[in-house]
């Protein structure tokens, strides 16, 4: 260090001076600041790409397993709790001419739902046929069932922090205070969140300049959100024209709401003024439990016996119809899947590590997929599954416009990443049911989404 007296004087007086920063200086700086780092952008692309695939996979799994699971449920949960003896019109000829092996090995079950019926019925049938058995080989018996439904129903780092703290006065020394100076919260400014060195900044110093608001130029930050969470669907059934109050009561008594789920991905833009815009994809699965009980149910089973000779040639095919009666209990987990595109406008503010906001807007439905059963107006259970050939025409395939509103609170958990919770209300403006269906069914979803937000 120089010890010349001029140098000393200048060094002593000019080393740590301060000056007032003109307010318009920041307006010229801010537009030139780099928006983000490419390396981080690739990381985000990978993150959200993987997240999107995961959510898509889960949604696809839910939808696809809804089919297979409902079939299994049908076999296991559709039960005939008791059966009477088969009706007297069972053909005795068939019994008399059917080989003894018939009951034990050669009945092919055509439908799972009839297995109980058949297994309980067969012993009585085979027991009465053992006398006049012709020594013929029975090679196969086709059994089909017919129920009181058209078809079987389907169911379901500290060092850095210290350094920054120590150096803040130096960084901020240009902004000597005056009454018109505005300050920036270095920890929460969306712009500055993109810089790793500032992400752990302590409480905003008073002599820091504020980007955004009145001082800033135009601009904001892009962000992406991935979320999921539980919910509850509230429904309202009303008569469309004729008085179907008893039918409404029947449906309400057989269908009960269960926990629903939602998940989604959104892209958003957060303007420095606080205004936010979000758009994305929103998936909802509404669950209901359908329970049906009929104490005097009747059904019929059609059996075709194929009789062959010793060489295996078919001698005769004899159809047989068996009527059964008993109690019938159906328990189905109904699922209503919807995929929507929300377009949300909101206001969001940051305070320290926290963000608060509200947003609302229209939601456009792109798909409505159903699995399960409901009661038809005639009181019989019918399928509402979209992939069922015998689907009862009650529901629409698309639900049109709905509205969504929510509030959220978020907490910064890392480098440009926020964890947030978002209670929401999602109301369907249109009926879920077709105009031809006598009941107008409306739905409102209430839930809580938990998600991650990342500034891009």
């Amino acid at each position: 260090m120089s010890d010349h007296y001029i140098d000393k004087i200048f060094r002593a007086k000019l080393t740590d001076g301060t000056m007032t920063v003109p307010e318009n200086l920041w307006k010229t700086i801010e537009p030139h600041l780099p928006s983000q780092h490419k390396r981080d952008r690739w990381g985000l692309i990978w993150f959200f790409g993987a997240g999107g695939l995961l959510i898509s996979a889960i949604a696809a799994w839910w939808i696809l397993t809804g089919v297979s699971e409902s079939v299994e449920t049908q076999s296991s949960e559709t039960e005939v709790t008791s059966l009477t003896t088969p009706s007297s019109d069972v053909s005795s000829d068939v019994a008399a001419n059917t080989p003894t092996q018939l009951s034990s090995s050669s009945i092919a079950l055509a439908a799972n739902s009839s297995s109980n019926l058949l297994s309980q019925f067969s012993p009585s049938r085979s027991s009465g046929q053992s006398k006049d058995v012709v020594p013929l080989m029975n090679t196969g018996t086709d059994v089909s069932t017919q129920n009181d439904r058209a078809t079987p129903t389907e169911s379901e780092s500290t060092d850095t922090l210290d350094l920054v703290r120590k150096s803040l006065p130096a960084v901020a020394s240009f902004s000597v205070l005056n009454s018109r100076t505005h300050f920036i919260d270095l920890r929460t400014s969306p712009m500055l969140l993109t810089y790793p060195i500032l992400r752990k900044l302590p409480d905003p110093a008073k002599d820091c300049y504020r980007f955004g608001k009145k001082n800033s130029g135009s601009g904001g930050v892009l962000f992406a959100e991935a979320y999921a969470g539980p919910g509850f669907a509230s429904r309202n059934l009303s008569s469309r024209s004729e008085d179907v109050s008893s039918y409404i009561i029947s449906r309400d008594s057989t269908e009960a709401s269960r926990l629903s789920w939602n998940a989604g991905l959104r892209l958003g833009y957060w303007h420095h003024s606080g205004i936010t815009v979000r758009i994305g994809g929103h998936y909802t699965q509404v669950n209901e439990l359908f329970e049906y009980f009929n104490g005097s149910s009747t059904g019929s089973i059609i059996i075709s016996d194929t009789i062959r000779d010793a060489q295996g040639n078919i001698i005769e095919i004899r159809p047989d119809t068996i009527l059964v009666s008993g109690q019938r209990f159906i328990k189905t987990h109904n699922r209503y899947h919807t995929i929507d595109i929300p377009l949300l406008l909101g206001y969001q503010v940051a305070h320290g590590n926290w963000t608060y906001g509200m947003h609302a807007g229209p939601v456009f439905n792109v798909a409505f997929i159903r699995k399960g059963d409901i009661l038809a107006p005639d009181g019989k259970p019918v399928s509402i599954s979209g992939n069922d050939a015998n689907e009862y025409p009650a529901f629409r395939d698309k639900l049109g416009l709905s509205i969504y509103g929510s509030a959220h609170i978020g907490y910064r958990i890392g480098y440009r990443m926020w964890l947030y919770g978002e209670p929401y209300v999602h109301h369907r403006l249109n009926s879920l049911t077709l105009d031809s269906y006598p009941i107008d069914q409306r739905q409102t979803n209430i839930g809580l989404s938990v998600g991650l937000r990342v500034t891009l």
Partner: protein
Amino acid sequence: MLYLCRRYAVDDNEAQDMVQEGFIRLFGNLDKFRNTGPFEGWVRRIFVNSAIKYYHREKNHNSAAAMEVASAFENEEPGVLNALSEQELLGLLSELPKGYRVVFNLYAIEGYSHAEIASLLDIRESTSRSQLVKARKLLQTKVNEMQRVML
């Protein structure tokens, strides 16, 4: 940092230009800070470099201000200089030709060596030395002029 830049600048506007460039460089290079030294020093160095870059760019446009060096008047008494305020000292610095001012700032105030200054400004060490001496002489001359006016 504005104050730092002001020492290198001829006026407030030039200082603001330097600050602007300095902050753009600072935010663009924050991820290069490796925690190996004081953050404050790293930031100062960025702003000094911005001022030097500004000097490099401007020196081609402004012919080396043909400010003649006043005849050497080696007043070894610092009394008058000591009495000058911060603003007056800044004013004196501003009146220096750009080359003198940059070298004086780097050497006398920032503590750079002539070798470092030569490297930063892409000049020879001897040039750095001579610029410094001339800067001091010119400053002293201006102080004396101020003193005469006051008297």
